[in-house]
């Protein structure tokens, strides 16, 4: 055992020592009484305990050293703390720290209360030998570490559950009855993290045969943005199912955003396309969102429509739209900007929508060769686009991305490949 002077010890290197690997455990004794401190040091010395022990005379003196220790032996009568306040302070400062309380014979009941307040164990002064002390410290550290692992595990499970709940909310099952239409959808959280962003999409076929498709993006990334994205998608679906005209749907989404956002600065871009029952044309509304890309057997182009402000930015009560010609057989790609913001080399250049279209061209050429018989063509195409974008970026894309690829295989109702 090595007893170091507290002031000298505080120069020791920062970071928590990995006590699981090293034999020497770092123990901090917080005890103002020199006699009692000497007894503890002697006990551990007698037992030959492999501990590096330091001493602090008060909580204030101990506080800066907590990062370097595995276990604290805490006297309950200190100049700056009495009773359980010290235990609570240590719990607040460092919940994962193992704390063992030292009590006198007369206040042994405090030991039990200290355990209730978060201490791992308690020892009664004068009734301890070195081996007991050593064992109690070791067990306290092990228990504390196990609890910390459990806590982290529980937290990770909660986060995963929360994310999958949000993800289900953001990315629903399309409500589609028309067998001539196929839908392939993908969502990827950005930066290879579990953190969700606020990308969302939906597709609803109305009773009158129109198919309404929407994709949107709440600016920023995180649980607030994701939760807001869920609100907006449900608001959109509700208004569409209620058969409201597009102008009302978009104004309704804007109102919900303004009322539900946590932060006044949040806004969302939105693209809404309504496909007519004959599937040959549609009405497109762009509210600050990149336009869809129309693919036909012999061409590819971005659809065009007047651009209105993203909901959440302006007063925006008017949503100009445009009629778009789709044709007899087509695919439509709706996406969020995470897809086109990936790098394409070491410089600042990004993919952009031009780069995306070049990529699709390439993917369409390659697709037949990579054909998997039981997967529809659009499923392959959408995966190929994501793979290429990620490959060009050199790693997972930073921002989250959502894509929706809708295919129409002609008035004859051909089922496609």
């Amino acid at each position, binding site marked *: 055992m090595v007893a170091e002077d507290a002031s000298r010890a505080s120069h020791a290197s920062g970071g928590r020592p990995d006590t699981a690997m090293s034999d020497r455990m770092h123990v901090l004794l917080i005890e103002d009484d020199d006699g009692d401190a000497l007894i503890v040091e002697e006990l551990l010395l007698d037992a030959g305990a492999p501990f590096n022990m330091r001493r602090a005379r008060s909580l204030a003196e101990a506080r800066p050293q907590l990062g370097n220790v595995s276990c604290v032996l805490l006297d309950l009568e200190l100049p700056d703390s009495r009773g359980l306040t010290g235990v609570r302070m240590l719990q607040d400062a460092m919940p994962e720290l193992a704390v063992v309380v030292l009590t006198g014979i007369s206040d042994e009941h405090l030991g039990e209360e200290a355990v209730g307040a978060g201490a791992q164990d308690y020892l009664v002064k004068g009734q301890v030998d070195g081996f007991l002390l050593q064992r109690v410290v070791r067990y306290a550290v092990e228990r504390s570490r196990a609890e910390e692992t459990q806590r982290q595990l529980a937290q990770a499970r909660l986060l995963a559950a929360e994310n999958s709940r949000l993800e289900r909310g953001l990315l629903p099952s399309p409500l589609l009855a028309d067998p001539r239409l196929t839908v392939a959808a993908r969502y990827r959280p950005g930066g290879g993290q579990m953190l969700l962003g606020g990308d969302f999409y939906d597709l609803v076929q109305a009773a009158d045969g129109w198919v309404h498709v929407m994709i949107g993006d709440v600016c920023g990334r995180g649980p607030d943005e994701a939760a807001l994205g869920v609100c907006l998608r449900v608001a959109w679906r509700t208004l569409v199912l209620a058969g409201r005209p597009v102008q009302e749907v978009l104004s309704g989404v804007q109102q919900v955003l303004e009322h539900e956002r946590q932060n006044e600065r949040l806004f969302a871009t939105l693209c809404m396309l309504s496909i007519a029952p004959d599937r040959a044309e549609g009405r497109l509304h762009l509210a600050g969102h990149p336009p869809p890309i129309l693919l036909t057997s012999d061409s590819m182009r971005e659809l065009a429509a007047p651009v209105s402000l993203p909901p959440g*930015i302006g007063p925006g009560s008017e949503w100009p739209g445009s009629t778009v010609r789709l044709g007899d057989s087509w695919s439509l790609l709706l996406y969020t900007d995470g897809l086109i913001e990936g790098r394409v080399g070491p410089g600042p250049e990004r993919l952009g929508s031009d780069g995306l279209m070049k990529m699709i061209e390439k993917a369409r050429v390659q697709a037949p060769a990579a054909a998997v018989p039981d997967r529809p063509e659009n499923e392959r195409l959408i995966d190929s686009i994501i793979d290429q974008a990620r490959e060009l970026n050199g790693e997972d894309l930073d921002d989250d991305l959502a894509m929706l690829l809708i295919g129409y295989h002609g008035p004859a109702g051909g089922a496609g490949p």
Partner: protein
Amino acid sequence: MDLKLDHHTKDGIEIVDVEGEIDVYTAPRLRELLIELVNSRFYQLVVNMEKVEFLDSTGLGVLVGGLKRVRAHDGSLDLVCTQERILKIFRITGLTKVFGIHDTVDEAIAARKSEK
């Protein structure tokens, strides 16, 4: 992946020079600077984006947030930008209707002065 920020006063207007990439990682620093300026009572801002290489939706959000903040004090936030790839982002998002976008800092200042 780097962002350089600088600012100086010119003709009573605070010019913010931004260089590099404004993305999900760096945008918080621009937000902090804009908040700091507004807290120091600079309500007439021009953000010079001539050396901005990339701007994502988080960056747009920060600019919109800055605009809302200065407007709360009857202030203004104008942009200087001539790069096509950055301008395209403002066009797609419709934000050309929200921000005054100018070719040079002097032009931005002149436009602001003439509006008064």
